């Protein structure tokens, strides 16, 4: 068991390192001189000659070999470093953990911005995920219990249709018609939970519901499938034959076995939500990671923001994978790791 966890941790670490190399190469090789040219045009407007571009590229370390730049980047994460934006020889201090400087936002530190934006994404993800997990599992169990009935067939047909419609259309139309036109829901947005939790809940109510309801369909289908398998097992028949109440059989004995694979999928989905609910944040105007990265794509292109968002999100997904794998061996006694 300990060996498995150690091996799994090592793999996860390797994946994070490789992802960081990938992101780094993508941004620093893929872009070439584009960041220097962009900085030059921003600083000097029309007077940006090819010599000036060269000076900017030199100052921004674009002429150094890739390995040295990557080393600087890694050192920056653990110890901090100094970054030049090209416009002047002046260097900006970037304390650890340094993920770069956001030029789009008054040269703020990316790490600070990340801390600033993360609560919104986290609150959004936790609320939405809680709704779809509970709703999906309950609906799935109910459908499995009344298998073949009109309720079951109706529920499964409607989940198929709902999950076939693009999520962002549901989000966009519900925002337009429920918030803007009918004003059934209060204006959406993120208000810090520490200030006024009621206001936070009001602003995120519709986004939570949209994430919850659209994703619940997939969980309902999946947990129904699991539950149907489990309910045909011998030990369930034994439990019923013993005279246990039907509710107790289904929810205590059945659900316990059926929920393990559901939790596995949930772990990965939740990580994807945490990695940035780009559409939800963009449509409902929530100031989280997703919206932040989209804004970084507008002029001026803010590459340190996007690379940081990609790196942090990929790390979160890897962590979630790790946790799910380890939890799985605890939750399901049949799983043996060697």
């Amino acid at each position: 068991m300990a060996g498995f966890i150690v091996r799994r941790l090592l793999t996860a670490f390797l994946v994070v390192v490789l992802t960081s190399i990938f992101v780094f190469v993508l941004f620093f090789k893929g872009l070439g001189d584009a960041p220097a040219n962009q900085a030059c045009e921003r600083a000097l407007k029309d007077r940006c000659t090819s010599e000036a571009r060269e000076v900017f590229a030199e100052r921004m370390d674009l002429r150094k070999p890739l390995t040295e730049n990557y080393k600087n980047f890694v050192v920056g994460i653990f110890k901090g470093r100094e970054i030049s934006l090209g416009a002047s020889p002046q260097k900006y201090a970037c304390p650890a953990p340094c993920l770069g400087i956001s030029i789009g936002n008054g040269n703020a530190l990316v790490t600070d911005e990340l801390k600033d934006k993360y609560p919104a994404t986290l609150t959004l993800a936790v609320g939405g995920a809680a709704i779809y997990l509970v709703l999906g599992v309950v609906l799935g169990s109910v459908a499995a219990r009344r298998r073949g009935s009109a309720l079951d067939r109706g529920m499964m047909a409607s989940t198929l249709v709902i999950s076939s419609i693009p999520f962002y259309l549901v989000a966009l139309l519900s925002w337009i018609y429920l918030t803007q036109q009918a004003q059934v829901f209060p204006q959406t947005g993120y208000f810090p939970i520490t200030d006024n939790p009621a206001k936070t809940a009001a602003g995120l109510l519709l986004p939570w519901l949209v994430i919850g309801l659209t994703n619940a369909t997939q969980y309902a289908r999946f947990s129904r499938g699991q539950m149907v398998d489990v309910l045909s097992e011998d030990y369930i028949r034994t439990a019923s034959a013993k005279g246990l109440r039907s509710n107790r059989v289904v929810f205590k004995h059945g659900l316990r076995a059926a929920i393990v694979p559901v939790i596995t999928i949930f772990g990965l989905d939740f990580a994807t939500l945490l990695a940035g609910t780009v559409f939800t944040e963009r449509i409902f105007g929530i100031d989280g990671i997703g919206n932040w990265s989209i804004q970084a794509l507008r002029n001026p292109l803010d590459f340190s923001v996007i690379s940081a968002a990609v790196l942090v999100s990929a790390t979160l997904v890897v962590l979630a994978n790790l946790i799910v794998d380890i939890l799985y061996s605890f939750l399901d006694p049949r799983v043996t790791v060697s």
Partner: protein
Amino acid sequence: MEPPPGEKKVAGKSPTRIAFDRLRKDKVAVVCTIVVILLVIAAAFAPLINKMLNIYGEASSLPYSPTDVLYFGGPNNGLPNVGPPVNGFTADHPLGLSPGQGLDNLARLLLGLRTSLLIATLATVISTIVGVVIGLVAGFSRGWLDRLLMFTTDLFLSFPFILGAMAMAPILRARFNDEDIDGLGRAQLIALIVILVFFGWMGLARLIRGQVLSLREREFIQAAQVIGVPTRQILFKELLPNMVAPIIVSISLSLPAFVTAEAGLSYLGIGLTGQPSLGQTIFDAQNYFEVYPLYLWAPVVTITILVLALNLLGDAIRDAFDPKTRR
């Protein structure tokens, strides 16, 4: 060959044949197939239909100046002065003109459908080939190559798709960048397909690898190996024909996924901007929901019908190939 009358044909059917027989009896599948075929025809002949109806969906080919067909000033600023929403329906422009640009909405819709289906089809074909090849090679080669390929697959799976696309879009565009609009449009198209393929091959690769792992222990593969059939021939002539079912199912489910992804990325402004696209139209139209609902609803309904039909069809195909389901 048709059996002579009065004699019952006793012949084995291939799994693909059985699946298609089951599909033909499935009402949902039949309806969805008809819808998809109609949409594909509309998309394929979009330029021809637009020419016949004398409507224009691209600013570069517009024969009239946008200022001729738009209101300026007043409460209707930017809205078209022919057709909806201010004036009633006109046969010249069945879905009206777009505010601010004076383009025909129907023409734009058809061209958008065309790009959408083109990108989704190309992305599906390429990612299927990549997935099948990687899956076959990984499953057939024991040891380090298999481990390396599966590790790469897991690495790609841990990469958040939308953020990855957001990171790659400006880079690819900077690489292909041309000054002219035509070049930019093509660059965006290629960039978008590259991104979709980049994040779209992993599921099939894993599936195929799993299939190969179980098939390679079967007698016919071992026999082929013993008599010295070259590996490439074993992979593509012996193994591949046994995996038609999972490949068809995967294709039918990735098409709608790619259509959805393309429109979504274009909606976010990181997909297509230089040419008609449904996602881009939805983005343009979202602020007109009150004054000009038709403008918003036309692309929304089109894309919903397309994705819904493709998804339901894909689901029916999956069920048809699954011997355990009874429909």
